[in-house]
């Protein structure tokens, strides 16, 4: 995988990595900067939390909590947040959430191949934006990526 974000101000591409969150990282994940109470996942064995960082930099630009549903060959995105300075029209980097969602898809396809699925339960008013931005498919209460839609987001963000 070769992942890179675009720095909005300079248009420069910066290499990034996505790795599993370590216990020490929770100290950094304040509600003020990452919008949610990430510490609540600290002892949750059923949730895997991932962080996105620029290569060679310890700062966390994005974080995502995933729940595996192996019986359904599916991974659910339970929670995702970009750091405060990467939200809105004045954000520093573009594509953080896209990279994290695509990464969830890569984990799903690695485990489940052509049966892989990534889903989330959207807030109603954001639903159409997820569909437009990430090519998500509508399943009523949930949105999901599977088949071509799942492959496409991987190809767009990760390869």
């Amino acid at each position, binding site marked *: 995988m070769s992942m890179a974000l675009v720095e909005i101000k300079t248009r420069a591409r910066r290499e990034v990595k996505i790795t599993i969150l370590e216990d020490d990282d929770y100290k950094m994940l304040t509600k003020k900067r990452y919008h949610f109470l990430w510490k609540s996942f600290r002892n949750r064995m059923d949730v895997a939390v991932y962080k996105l960082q620029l290569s060679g930099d310890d700062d966390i630009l994005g974080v995502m909590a995933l729940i595996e549903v192996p019986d359904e060959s599916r991974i659910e995105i339970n*929670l995702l947040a970009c750091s405060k300075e990467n939200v809105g029209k004045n954000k520093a980097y573009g594509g953080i*959430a896209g990279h994290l969602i695509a990464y969830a898809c890569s984990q799903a396809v*690695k485990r489940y191949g052509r049966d892989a699925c990534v889903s989330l339960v959207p807030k109603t008013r954001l639903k159409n*934006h997820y569909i437009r931005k990430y090519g998500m*498919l509508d399943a009523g209460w949930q949105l999901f990526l599977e088949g071509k839609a799942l*492959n496409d987001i991987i190809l767009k963000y990760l390869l």
Partner: protein
Amino acid sequence: MNTKKTRVKHTPGELAEAYVYPVTLTPAQKKEADKQLKAARAKVQSEMTAEDKLTSDILQLRFQLEDYLNNEKFDPRLKFSYFLKAYVQLLNKKRKVFAREINIDETELSQLINDHRHPSENIIIRLELHSNNAIPAIAWYKLIEREKEHYIITNKTIRKQEEKHVSNRLTVDID
């Protein structure tokens, strides 16, 4: 979780590009959501083209290979031969046909798949070209390198054999 503050500052589009919020469904809603997802997924699966399936299969192989290479441990099961066999299988072609496509003899392909010989540089470049760069030559190369590394580190027989060709060894001990 309170999102009112954010709502004032950002448009829904901007929020969708930054967050996935937690949403709790009632048991009844959850049941309905599961049912809807199952039906929608079945439709997507039934509409997957052969190309979509091949793309998924290739991506799976590539990520498994990358995962193995990122993990420093040698796994005797996951050799070049294992991944080559997986690649040929997912193409759903006879070995004879695939051998022709990369211009090697079918016997040579069998030897590579059965781990009876190592590939030349030409072969790994041809594999990269055949996969349209989906599996880069460097990934194939690193697999072979990892096998060699393991062989060099662990092989006692070759050390025994080579002893007779070495004289006047250093006497310092820094092991």
